[in-house]
């Protein structure tokens, strides 16, 4: 469990071809797209497909091994493991996505504002960002949960608090150059209003690096959500989440070893998918990575 800080070097811009086509041509991006699409389909469509309600116990069917009716077996209270895996996908993947989007937006807004305002607003915001960045992300997340108490929404807030500062710093660095770029200067000379200059010449060059970093960070968010839920600080009973499901089964090693495999595989595959996607996006977005 860790929040890795991804780094980028050099300028970042969208690939010339369509983004999906470019990803499908990239050797590891292809696998990222396939895996990611499968997991996303499971999270979105899954709950209508599965045969059993995810949260209703059925003690008569407790701890069934995988077989017909219960493809992945049942847990200690007879709930269908497959249904819970599918139901948990929404919390693990959806939560990570929500955190990444929120971090990107906050970074975009704070960074662009600092670069546009300049002077003391810039200095004050960036000193604050410096202090937050000097703190290890996991510890910040622990502190915010300590402040707000355990819970799924609180966990998401904690992860946002732990990781927004780095995005703000990157956004500010990109926006600082973009605000003073020749294209922006010329537009101003021609009397284009400042908000249109920002929309056309400042936001795009800030957005791309943040998108790449956001995708690279997605795996860390998925791992963090499952780790905190495993510790009982995230998703609460009776709701299913992959890390929380692992916590439920960790005393059933010898009785029901199959319960461990599903959630482990789901966590591993989704972190892998977002790592592959993020690396491919980084390759495509930096000039030397394009071939």
């Amino acid at each position, binding site marked *: 469990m860790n929040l890795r800080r991804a780094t980028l070097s050099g300028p970042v811009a969208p690939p010339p071809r369509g983004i999906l086509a470019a990803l499908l041509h990239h050797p590891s991006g292809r696998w990222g797209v396939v895996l990611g699409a499968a997991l996303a389909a499971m999270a979105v469509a899954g709950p209508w497909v599965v045969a059993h309600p995810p949260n209703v116990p059925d003690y008569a069917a407790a701890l069934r091994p995988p077989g017909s009716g219960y493809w992945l077996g049942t847990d200690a209270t007879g709930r269908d493991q497959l249904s819970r895996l599918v139901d948990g996908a929404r919390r693990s993947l959806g939560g990570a996505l929500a955190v990444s989007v929120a971090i990107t937006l906050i970074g975009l807004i704070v960074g662009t504002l600092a670069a546009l305002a300049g002077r003391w607003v810039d200095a004050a915001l960036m000193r604050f960002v410096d202090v937050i960045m000097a703190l290890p992300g996991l510890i910040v997340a622990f502190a915010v949960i300590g402040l707000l108490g355990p819970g799924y929404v609180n966990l998401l807030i904690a992860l946002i608090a732990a990781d927004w500062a780095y995005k703000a710093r990157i956004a500010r660095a990109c926006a600082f150059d973009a605000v003073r770029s020749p294209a922006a200067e010329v537009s101003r000379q021609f009397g284009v209003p400042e908000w249109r200059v920002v929309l056309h010449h400042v936001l795009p060059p800030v957005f791309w690096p943040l998108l790449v970093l956001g995708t690279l960070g997605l795996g860390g968010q998925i791992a963090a959500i499952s780790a905190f839920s495993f510790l009982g600080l995230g998703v609460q009973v009776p709701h299913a989440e992959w890390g929380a499901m692992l916590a439920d089964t960790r005393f059933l090693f010898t009785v029901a070893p199959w319960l461990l495999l599903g959630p482990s595989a789901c966590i591993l595959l989704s972190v892998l998918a977002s790592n*592959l996607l993020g690396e491919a996006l980084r390759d495509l977005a930096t000039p030397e990575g394009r071939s």
Partner: protein
Amino acid sequence: MGRALVMRLGQAVLAAFGASLLVWLMLPLAPGDPVDMILNAQRVEEPTDQHIAALRDRFGLDRPLWQRYLVWIGGVVQGDFGLSWRTGEPVLSGLMRRLPATLQLVGLSFVISVAWSLGLALVAARWAGRWPDRLVLAYTRLLAATPSFVLALLVLQFVVVGMGIGLVLSGGAGATLIIAAAILGIDRAAGWTQLLRAGLLEHLARGPADVAKARGARPGRVLAIYALPAALLPWMTALGISLGGLIGGAPILEMIFTWPGIGEHVLTALSVRDVPVIQAFVLIAVLAYVAASLVVDAMAIMLDPRMRHARPA
């Protein structure tokens, strides 16, 4: 060099002060009346007025905010983090009693991690592009996608229980420590291996290494003399930065292996919102992290002339 060191030190002091302010703010910022939180943490159902007044007085809740910060920071400097809301014992002694076990775990896993990633990265770079390199890359991809607690559960299930060496774990603290530290270290080593491999390849592609190769130096020698020393320094800086992840990742492994470190203590504090204990843990972890990255950066400044003129990032 002196100037760069002083600036870096100033940055660390600013970070430490900012962190102390943020950590202290946890108390007044926490939603709800602190007295309710204390009573909740102590699991008192129906408190008397007297009890509440005594609590307000004991934890200094009636004073103005700035006074409370000064009192708090004054105590912290002397190692007094106040009393645990849950147990009423001094926070610091509760943490200190459990700290050595955690330091053992984190220290051993750090050593394992460094050794493991150094070996793997050297193998990958020596046979770059060939099968050992591809094997190492696939391995690091897989492990980088496995959170340490998932790896711990899988190892417990399929290696320790599955191979019938479960008795090893009941054999004593030593065996538990080694297994837990190995899992934490090997999991963390995946990212570190990728980082060092990339650095080694970068330096292998540069002029000096090319000249040595053209001169007919053996590949292992080129790697050891022209790539490793140059790639090692930035890598060590990165290790210092990710120490925070190791400290933060320890509690979850302590819980799985019932290792008596601060992890379990802090998790209990988190679940009942025992704010003084959480404050102390966060502040100590942050200070350790700030100090570690300061030492690493100071080393880099002293060893690498280019760092002396670089503006602190």
